[in-house]
């Protein structure tokens, strides 16, 4: 058994059963990192010695019959906007002081409590926003971006370095890199995972998220990390899935559109009931609503950094934050009122279906590293705070992964994960690149 081939759930089970030692799991991860990191650049910080030391402690505990939690001995990565007590937080910005250490973020603490071993920090776009991207490349084709802003989290999982990583999403930053790397992702309900100790982009839109090898991993890790432990849910006897087209179909590339239809056909053939769902009228304004909220909150957060670190902040990020500071207060508040209406209108879509299905992205990962891709298919869900998952739906004609996205009503995270698991069982998982 090669640990790098295992899903999170398989690895955790193998460790719990004694079939795999945490030290072997961590050593395998670093062997894979050594082999691929120089090309894909998934990591902003790694601490091999600390990870191996922790693995030895966890190994001894397991041999003594103690398991800390459901992720005992599993190596993971966290996006470099989450504080971890023994690592720097740089957020891909020279304005951050790499010598500083902070207490564990809520997510890092929850991972450790569950027994996970944090190998290091995964790369991010500057401050997880729309600033300078990292050098991370797509493991399927290094000429393409690995996505972002949770770039390293997606790439590290897609490159089979680790079975699961933590990202964040304010627009489309967690689900999109998951899809671009051919793996599974979860953007939970707003507030479901801790934002404590996580550098914000926009407080009312920020979500910690998961990127993992398989949909079943999302259930295991989300349950382990959730602030309020969710009650287990059973999959429905027959899935009733609302299909969203309109905006999503109009923006999809031919490859994405074809992949979506093939996936829907397979799901229907498997017995799932598909229902065409119209989008509410207010949906047309969702990106504008999101833009004004995100811009205002981001500008306020970065105001002191612009003042104090003008020379070290990239011009790209500074100019953007300065422009965002010009949004009038009344427009911010009007956008927050519109958000409430949109939440109500979107929640009504779930009255008669379990989840909604749509393409995850308009197309595959773009060529080059200047942009990390198009977030437009995630923005509505980041704005409303509704949970979403993505799984791979196949490969495009250029050999890059495409994704299928599910959205659920607020608080139905496990149901949306179950939908991803059911769909993944029908569609299969991609064989990740060597």
């Amino acid at each position, binding site marked *: 058994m090669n640990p790098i081939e295992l899903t999170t759930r398989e690895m955790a089970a193998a460790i719990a059963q004694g079939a795999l030692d945490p030290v072997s799991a961590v050593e395998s991860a670093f062997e894979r990192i050594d082999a691929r990191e120089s090309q894909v650049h998934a990591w902003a910080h790694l601490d091999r010695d600390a990870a191996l030391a922790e693995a030895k402690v966890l190994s001894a505990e397991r041999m003594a019959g103690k398991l800390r939690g459901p992720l005992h001995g599993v190596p993971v990565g966290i996006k470099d906007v989450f504080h971890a007590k023994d690592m720097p937080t740089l957020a891909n910005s020279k304005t951050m002081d790499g010598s500083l250490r902070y207490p564990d973020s809520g997510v890092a603490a929850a991972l450790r409590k569950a027994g996970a071993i944090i190998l290091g920090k995964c790369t991010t776009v500057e401050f997880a926003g729309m600033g300078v991207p990292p050098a991370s490349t797509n493991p399927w084709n290094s000429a393409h971006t690995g996505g972002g802003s949770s770039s390293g989290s997606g790439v590290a999982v897609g490159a089979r370095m680790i079975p699961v990583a933590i990202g964040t999403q304010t627009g489309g930053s967690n689900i999109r890199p998951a899809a671009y790397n051919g793996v599974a992702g979860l953007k939970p309900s*707003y507030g479901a995972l801790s934002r404590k100790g996580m550098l914000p982009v926009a407080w009312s839109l920020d979500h910690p998220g998961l990127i993992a090898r398989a949909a079943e991993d999302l259930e295991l890790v989300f349950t382990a990390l959730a*602030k309020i432990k969710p009650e287990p849910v059973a999959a429905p006897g027959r899935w009733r899935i609302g299909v969203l087209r309109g905006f999503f179909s109009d923006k999809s590339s031919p490859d994405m559109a074809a992949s979506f239809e093939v996936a829907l056909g397979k799901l229907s053939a498997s017995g799932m009931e598909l229902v065409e769902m119209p989008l509410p009228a207010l949906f047309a304004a969702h990106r*504008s609503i999101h833009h004004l909220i995100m*811009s205002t909150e981001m500008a306020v957060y970065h105001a002191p950094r612009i003042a104090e670190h003008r020379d070290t902040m990239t011009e790209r990020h500074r100019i953007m934050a300065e*422009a965002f500071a*010009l949004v009038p207060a009344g*427009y911010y508040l009007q956008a*927050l009122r519109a958000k409430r209406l949109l939440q109500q209108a979107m929640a009504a879509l779930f009255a008669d279906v379990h989840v909604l299905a749509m393409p995850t992205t308009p197309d595959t990962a773009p060529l080059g590293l200047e942009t990390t891709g198009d977030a437009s298919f995630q923005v509505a869900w980041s704005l409303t705070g509704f949970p979403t998952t993505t799984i791979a739906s196949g490969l495009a004609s250029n050999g890059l992964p495409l994704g299928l996205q599910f959205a659920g009503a607020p608080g139905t995270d496990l149901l949306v994960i179950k939908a991803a698991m059911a769909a993944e069982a029908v569609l299969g998982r991609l064989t990740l690149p060597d």
Partner: protein
Amino acid sequence: MRLKPPVSEEHAYQYLSLNAALVWGLGDAAKMDGHLHSIAAAMAEVSALDIEDSVEPIFGEDHALDPEDAA
């Protein structure tokens, strides 16, 4: 800046451009032109929304109040 009657994208852009020059200077204002256009478009769209008086803004959670995080 007024919310109602709805502002046009052009009107919003002029407002933002003038403020950008005033607040950040002409040099930076020119560099942020693309952002100003995108904000102006968003302002025009949000300005055109009809929202009943009873609708209040919805803010984010205060995670400092979460029991687990407060520890």
